[in-house]
């Protein structure tokens, strides 16, 4: 049914439809409205679950670790400093192969403290072993949240659903909220074979020495690679139920014959797509919306880049002392192609700086001037820098 909902409210309802057994979360802007909405559903008796109002994100992540290990479908949500405080636990959840789902309402990282949107938080834990899926709008966020439980439970990997803080979490959009029947037919009740159970005692989180550590980590890597078809299948099966897909691993839009493409993740894709439609026909580019950042869909990306001369990677984070993170990964991923496109790399929109419609044209022009292997922050304002950095 169609509803006008705030992004966070929509996520809370979508999560409730998945019937989690345990929810633990700690407030942090811009994730807070999600926790508040879930609290309300619990208080009104509309969501029957154990809601644990923890005293920190460290405990939020630890509670869902424990709950998942004990065999309950478990959910948490956070942002920014909260994700960083969870970091130690996040690696552990993935290493133990626990199918936890969480929403990351993407926000910038301190210092300086800033509550607005970019992708530095989820980027910082990209090596934790979590699947990371990015959403371009609130409908995708709803559908991806539901799919996330299925992906997590089939792959025994945790899934982080990334949605832009404020831009999506605090925006009212008309969305189609699936029915309980639709979700129930898609998502079977949670059963977890490795759960803590006195009838079949297992030891989780054991010490592993040099003889097996490499193999344990390799298996985690393989599990993420093997998750690629699961992510595609989860989306295709969902589309059969509700007639709508959320973007598989990645999607490509724009003219077939365009030789320039812009690749991005998250809500900026919607801005780029709209600006692209306003360009004259012969100036239009392809827009590649990368949904699965982990696992990184190398093959699918190479296919999407066939025939391209230039690929502009636009991202919302960077690695100080190196440059773009996504850009660096895309360059590596395309290195094996016969005729790879030239990859240009820009960061934009840090800490909530607005990304206007004019960004696309500015980007296309700036790309022409960028040296091979280059990187730049597109919207840095020189007059706001100290003289030595201008």
């Amino acid at each position, binding site marked *: 049914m169609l509803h006008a909902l705030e992004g966070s409210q929509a996520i809370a309802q979508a999560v409730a439809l998945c019937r989690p057994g345990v929810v633990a979360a*700690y*407030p*942090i*802007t811009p994730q*807070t409205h999600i*926790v*508040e909405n879930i*609290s*309300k559903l*619990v*208080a*009104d*008796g509309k969501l029957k679950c154990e809601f644990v*109002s923890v*005293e*920190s*994100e460290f405990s939020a992540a630890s509670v869902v670790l424990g709950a998942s290990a004990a065999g309950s479908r478990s959910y948490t949500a956070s942002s920014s*400093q909260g994700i960083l*405080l969870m970091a130690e636990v996040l690696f552990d959840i993935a290493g133990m192969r626990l199918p936890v789902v969480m929403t990351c309402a993407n926000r910038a990282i*301190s*210092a*300086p*403290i800033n509550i607005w949107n970019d992708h530095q938080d989820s980027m910082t834990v990209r090596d934790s072993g979590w699947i990371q899926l990015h959403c371009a709008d609130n409908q995708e966020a709803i559908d991806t949240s539901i799919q996330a439980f299925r992906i997590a439970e089939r792959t025994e990997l945790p899934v982080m659903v990334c949605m832009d803080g404020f831009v999506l979490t605090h925006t009212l959009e008309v969305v189609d909220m699936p029915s309980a029947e639709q979700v129930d037919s898609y998502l079977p009740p949670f059963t977890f074979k490795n759960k803590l159970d006195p009838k079949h005692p297992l030891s989780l989180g054991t010490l592993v020495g040099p003889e097996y550590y490499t193999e344990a980590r390799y298996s985690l890597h393989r599990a993420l690679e093997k998750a690629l078809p699961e992510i595609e299948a989860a989306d295709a099966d969902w589309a059969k139920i509700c007639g709508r897909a959320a973007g598989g691993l990645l999607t490509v839009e724009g003219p077939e014959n365009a030789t320039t493409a812009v690749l991005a993740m998250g809500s900026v894709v919607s801005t780029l797509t709209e600006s692209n439609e306003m360009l004259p026909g012969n100036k239009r580019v392809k827009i590649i919306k990368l949904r699965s950042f982990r696992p990184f869909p190398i093959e699918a990306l190479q296919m999407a880049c066939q025939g391209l001369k230039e690929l502009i990677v636009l991202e919302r984070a960077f690695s100080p002392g190196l440059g773009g993170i996504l850009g660096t990964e895309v360059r590596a991923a395309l290195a094996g192609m016969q005729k790879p496109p030239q990859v240009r790399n820009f960061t934009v929109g840090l800490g909530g700086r607005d990304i206007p419609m004019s960004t696309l044209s500015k980007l296309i022009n700036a790309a022409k001037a960028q040296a091979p292997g280059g990187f730049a922050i597109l919207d840095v304002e020189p007059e706001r820098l100290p003289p030595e950095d201008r």
Partner: protein
Amino acid sequence: MDSTKLKQEIQERRRQAQSAPSESMPVEHNMAELRKLQPRYRGLEAGHRACQGCGEALAARLVTEAAGPDVILTNATGCLEVFTTPWPQSAWRLPWIHSLFENSAAIASGVEAALKAQGRKTKVIAQGGDGGTFDIGFQALSGMLERQHNILYVCYDNEAYMNTGIQRSGSTPHAAMTTTSPPGKERMGKRHLKKDLLSIIAAHHIPYAASASVAYPADIRRKVRRAVSIEGPTFLLIHSPCPLGWGIDSEISIEVARLAVQTGLFPVVELERGELTGVMPIRHPRPVADYLKLQNRFKHLFTDDPRAREEREHLQALADHNIEIYQLKGDGMDALDTDGADTVRRGGMVD
């Protein structure tokens, strides 16, 4: 010990504490001079962006006024941090550092260690809201106390996470409404009790731990001076209303804070090395309902719902329990802090 004897002993200790020489500030001579030049010393300037009637803003001003200029402050993430330092402005006249939400006590430990290494006598005051103190920063605080750092930790207790929009904390009173403890078909607000932090702090056997309320400024000043005069870890919990979060008009902020004390819901006490050594007496305890009914966060307790009456009685029982265990019922002294009220009007203290 029977209750009259305990009461007598408390009163005796209070008299001693009030005449103790430790009242004066242990500042170097030049700092004392500096203070004379600035008779209305203010560590926190006006013009910051707190809401009208913000208890925290008033309490922080009183704390820094009383502690004087030879101080370094640390601050946990929270309202106080946000409303005092929107870049490129700062309302602090003292050196001040904010790092994260959970580490105010730990960065203060580091600052104090460096001062020790440099042989400097500057006092360190760590600050946090109740979320940053009762909950996420609790581990760092416990470590700071256990290691005996020479730091005064001040918690501005507004009983919820206000900076992120009123979520429950370990300090939120039982049955209060917040956005993460909403009343509904299955709930009457917060299910759990307010954490008895002061007892936990006292169990660290630190030299001095006390509670205070913004409704009693002179008491805050006395306690701050006392605390900073002690070499070692000290702790002050200041009850600080938040008009936005409690759902009260800003002009009754102080009145509401005073009622929290007068009902016994927020006991104002002093503990030395874990022993109770002083209490602010209540001459005529007020019914808890007088306090609750002024605030929106307890609105659901004044409905026809039978659970509402039960929760009100529960809160009354908690207040009665406080009055009993801390022997709050006093006769001789009046808890009305007229000196303080005057100071608030003047906007500073002339020492």
